[in-house]
Each structure stands twice: as C-alpha cells, then as structure tokens.
C-alpha cells in the first residue's frame, strides 16, 4: 500500500525525485517515486533537468594545470623524515595489528591498577575525615580547642584515646578532652580515627568494644595508622600507564596526515 501523494507540488518530496532521477531508490520507494513523476508534471520536469545537469557535469572540460608539481631535491630533504621521526613513521606503517589495541589496554590496566593500589590510602584518609567531622559534630566546642595541647603530649593523648575514646565519641566524656585527641591537630587526626574505632564506637555497649583497644591507635606519635598503599602494584600500574600513554603518543605521531 502506498501513501496518498500530496496534491500540491510544493509538498512533494524533491529528494525522492532526485534519487529516482539518479536511479537510486529502493524498491519500496520506487512505486511512490514513479507515481509522483507520473502525476506531477513539475516533478517530472525536475527529474529531467537533474539528469541533464548530471550529464553536463560529467562533460565539463578539465581545468588546465598552470604549475608543475614535481618535487625539487630541497623539498624532498625538507619532507623526508629523519632520526626519531623515521622510527615513528615506520611504527605507523607497520601492520602489526596487535600493537593497536595495546595502547588502550595498557592505559586502562594502569589506571585500574593505580586506583586499586591507592584505594586503601583513600579509605584511610576518608575515615580520618569522617571520624574527625563526626567528633566535631558531637561537640561543637571541640573544634575550637587549641592544637598545642595535643602537640605537647602526643603519646599521652594516644594512650588516652585507647582508654576513653569510645566514650568520648558517644559524648559522655567532658567536651574539652575530645578535641585534644581527635580533631585538635595533625597527630591526633591521624592517630585516633580508624574504621575499627568508629565501628566500636557505635557498638560501645558490647563487651568487646569496651575492652579491646583499637589496633590502629598507639602506633606512635605522628605515624599514620591507616592501611598502607600497595607500592609494588602502584609502581607496576604507573609503568603500564606510562607505556600505554607512550603508545598512544607514538600512534598519534605516526598517523598519516593526508592533507599536510
């Protein structure tokens, strides 16, 4: 079944007419195009004109060249790749299809490896941030406590946090003691918070929370107690990433540039 053709020539599909004039319509469209040409004299005239234009275009005389395009030796010297550029061009010319997917693969592996190796570090710092902020929320006065108090007795504060940290997080300890251990300065911020102490703080009514000191606490003054990043994995991932990016760069440098 074909659609009803529009009555007015202005509404007729001229691209369809052009396609039919070029003999370039699908079988499904051909009937509609033929109906259009049979029923509309203006469309039929356009189709004839388009054929005439195509014939005239094909018969256009060739423009005459006005310049000689042969290369001079100095042009060749200038254009010929040398040194590392020749190596890069040779790389681009190679048909080793295996090399092509290597760049994205190595880059992806490197990125993922870096992310994975850096994840514990991110979690550690994230934990410190959250426990610090929760402590600050628990006691607004804490945030205004002076940092030097912590700096003066770092070992004492770490030991104290092992004993009383749970209860202070719950807000049962005097407010001034809290900032000295958890948010007062860099040492307290690094030493007191750990995922374990946060967990035990929430479950502080249980016996384990009350008796087991958090293992991350008391490592020593000024030493971060969070999990350490996986250094070998990070180094391997960075190497992969650099290799992948280098391959990308090499491919880009060796890509043929047809217009330059």
């Amino acid at each position, binding site marked *: 079944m074909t659609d009803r053709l529009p009555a007015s020539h202005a509404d007729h599909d001229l691209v369809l007419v*052009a396609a039919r004039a070029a003999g370039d319509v699908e079988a499904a469209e051909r009937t509609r195009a033929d109906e259009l040409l049979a029923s509309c004299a203006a469309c039929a005239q356009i189709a004839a004109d388009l054929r*005439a234009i195509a014939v005239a275009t094909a018969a256009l005389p060739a*423009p005459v060249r006005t*310049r000689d395009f042969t290369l001079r030796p100095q*042009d060749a010297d200038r254009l010929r790749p040398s040194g590392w550029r020749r190596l890069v*061009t040779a790389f681009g010319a190679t048909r080793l299809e295996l090399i092509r997917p290597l760049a994205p693969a190595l880059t992806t592996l490197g990125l993922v490896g870096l992310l994975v190796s850096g994840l514990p570090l991110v979690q550690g710092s994230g934990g410190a941030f959250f426990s610090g902020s929760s402590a600050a929320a628990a006691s607004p006065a804490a945030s205004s406590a002076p940092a030097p108090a912590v700096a003066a007795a770092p070992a004492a504060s770490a030991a104290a946090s092992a004993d009383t940290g749970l209860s202070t997080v719950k807000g049962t300890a005097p407010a001034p003691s809290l900032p000295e251990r958890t948010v007062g300065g860099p040492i307290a911020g690094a030493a007191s918070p750990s995922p374990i102490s946060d967990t035990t703080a929430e479950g502080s009514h249980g016996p384990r929370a009350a008796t087991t000191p958090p293992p991350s606490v008391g490592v020593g003054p000024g030493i971060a107690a969070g999990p350490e990043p996986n250094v070998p994995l990070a180094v391997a991932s960075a190497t992969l990433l650099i290799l992948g990016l280098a391959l990308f760069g090499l491919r880009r440098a060796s890509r043929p540039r047809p217009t330059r």
Partner: protein
Amino acid sequence: MEDPRSTTVTDDPVQRRDLILVERARGGDLDAFNDLVICYQDHLFALVARMVPDRDQASDAVQEAFFSAYRNLGTFRGGSVRSWLSRICVNAAMDAQRARKRRPVQPYPELEDESWQPRAGDETDPQRIVIAGERTRALNDALARITVDQRAAIVLFDVEGYDYAEIAEMTGVSLGTVKSRIHRGRLALRLLLEGRMELFRG
C-alpha cells in the same frame, strides 16, 4: 621477511608501474616519485580545481597534497596509487575550501578564466560552441555556489566516476550521506540554474 605492502600482485600494468615507482620512491628515489607526479598531476589538478574554485588555492592544495604523499609514502598500504593520491587531494581540497570559508577572498575570480572554456574540439557550429561555453560557465558558477561537501560529492561521482562506497571512504562519511549530498547538491544546482536551464535541455 618481505614487506606485505610490496607484495600486492596486480595484472593492471599501470598499477604495477605505479607500485614499482612507489617502492623506488620509498627507497629515496626522488625521480621515481616525480614520475608519479608527472603521471597524475593533470588529473589531480583537474579534480582539485573543480572542488576549489580559486585557481591559486587549487594549485597550492595540489602541491600540498604531493608533499603529503611524499612524506607519507611509508604509510601507503598497497592498492591503487591513483586512488590513494586522489584521496589525499580530496582532503587537501576540502581543507582549502574550509580555510577559504573562514577567510573569504575575492569571490570566484576563476569565472573569468579562459581555461574553463571548453576546447573547440570537433564542434564546428559556432552557435553550438557558444552554447557549450555558456553552459560550462553557468554550471561552474553554480558549482562554486553549492556547499563544499555537495560539490566534492558531485565532482567525485559525476566527473571522476567513483561509486558511492569509494566516495564514502574518501570523504569519511556514510553511504547515505554521500547519496544525500549528491541528490541535494543536484537540486541546489538546478535551483541556481533555474533561469538558464534551456542551455541544458538541448
């Protein structure tokens, strides 16, 4: 191990000659490359000059295309040297057209250029010669006024005789886009030639 690009076997003597010249040029033989230039410069200039209405820009584009071909000889993957050079020239012509669009210069000075006129050839009837000249002038004028993409597609299809798939590959667009550019381009030409269609209805 032999380079796979150099092992393309072809029965076409022209293509075989071209491949030999390319191999020698790759080895640093400038004369071999210049033999290729001599073989194809007329054809390629005609192709580019139809796409780039400004004659000087067309010459510059062809020169740039040959420079590019020489620089990228190592990336030639076999097949038709003529098609490879044509593709480079089409890209150079389209780049030149886009540059012209950004930086308009004197519009279409080439329309007064006598080299666009058809050669007398076998035609002896003065009236027919005049009509043929008028038709060529009108068509070149109209071609210069349609879009760059439409002009490229029409020249490659109608004048150069490439098929839709080859044009799609050369210009980096889909088959449907090539067809659409040709059909819409011809409609645009007809619109521009509306008052002069009697020249074509012979």
